[in-house]
């Protein structure tokens, strides 16, 4: 890994430069942007279907009813996609969006592992566990 060594030798002897291999971060940044644009595209497709069918109905968000169960869970969203409902497709796009920071955390684990930084692999695993609990353990996964 000649590139990594060259960057490392430039840094201060007592202060390690975080993320020595910035390529990982650059790839990750572009990956995130792609993820966001992909989710925006899915949301936009869903929006077209939704608006084509419901454009002239009255909009009312005054009263909180909560979403129906098929829009509250990952499996519910995936199942209701088959019925080509615009709202389900939008919700799928939003799920993709929620997944982008999670993907960033997963890739950070890989990055820290490459740097053999066990402490930060452990820290990042804790963060990932919290994220997965929220998405899968709190009822949204069912």
């Amino acid at each position, binding site marked *: 890994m000649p590139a990594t060594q060259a960057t490392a030798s*430039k*840094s*201060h002897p*007592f*202060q*390690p430069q*975080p993320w020595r291999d*910035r390529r990982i*971060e650059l790839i990750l*940044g572009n990956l*995130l*942007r792609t993820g*966001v644009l992909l*989710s*925006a595209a899915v*949301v*936009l497709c*869903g*929006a077209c279907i*939704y*608006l084509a069918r*419901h*454009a*002239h109905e*009255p*909009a009312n*968000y*005054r009263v*909180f009813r*909560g*979403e*129906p169960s098929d*829009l*509250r*869970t990952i499996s519910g969203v995936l199942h209701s996609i088959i019925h080509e409902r615009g*709202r*389900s497709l*939008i919700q799928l796009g*939003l799920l993709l*969006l*929620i997944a*982008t*920071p*999670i993907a*960033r955390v997963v890739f950070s684990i890989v*990055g820290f592992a490459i740097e053999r930084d066990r*402490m*930060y692999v452990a*820290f*990042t695993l*804790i*963060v990932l566990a919290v*994220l997965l*609990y*929220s*998405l899968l353990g*709190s*009822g*949204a*996964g069912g």
Partner: protein
Amino acid sequence: MTILEFTAIVAAVSFVAGLLGSLTGLGGGVVLVPLLTTLFHVDIRYAIGASLVSVIATSSGAAASYVKEGFSNIRIGMFLEIATTFGALLGAFLATRIPTSALAIIFGLVMVYSAFLSRKPRPRAERSLPPDPLATRLRMNGSFPDAEGLRFYNVQNVPSGFSLMFGAGALSGLLGIGSGAVKVLAMDQAMRIPFKVSTTTSNFMIGVTAAASAGIYLSRGYIDPGLAMPVMLGVLAGSLLGSRILVKAETQSLRFVFAGVILVLGLQMLYKGFWGKI
């Protein structure tokens, strides 16, 4: 109002909020919830859910341009994420339990505070602080490219920064905002991180923090696709445009105006919260 009109107007308002939020660095999410609740009479829970989604879009969308600048410190970010994600879980659970009038009051207080904070000049990070043993052990000290080459910095007060971050995460989960103001406060004031580093690191953290409460919001039915769609698309487009023109724009007066808007909306939220009109 029909769904078509509603969608178009909400998208336009979200676009402006995203643009101003990114130009001023104050974030668009903080004005969205009061605008949705007061102008469009949206229930605050739907508004919070839509705002949270847009916060993730802004954070992940801006990541690529921030990474290229090479300022963000991924270790500081990841360590503090432990605090913000646990905070966000707590905040999201509380959001489903406390009355909406209390939510409005907390929201108003946070907005007034953010407006006040944005008027204060950010501290110039001192050049040569001694290395802190805990920060050194956590390998947080780093460097970033400056006009004179690489500039090194030593992180201070990790425990107080960590505690403030727990609070920032809780507010984010409770109110569906990025709470960038509190995050930057923790990193600037407590941990003495140079602001170029703290701003970009905070952007990275905002998305992860918001993702931690998103699952809970989803399972409680707070994320309505019909509302989140125009908000997310509008804010994303606005903030991407904002980050393109950020380099050239004179943001000082714009920041002043936007802080004024935040203050007015914050006071309005307080009023509505206290008089139970929400």
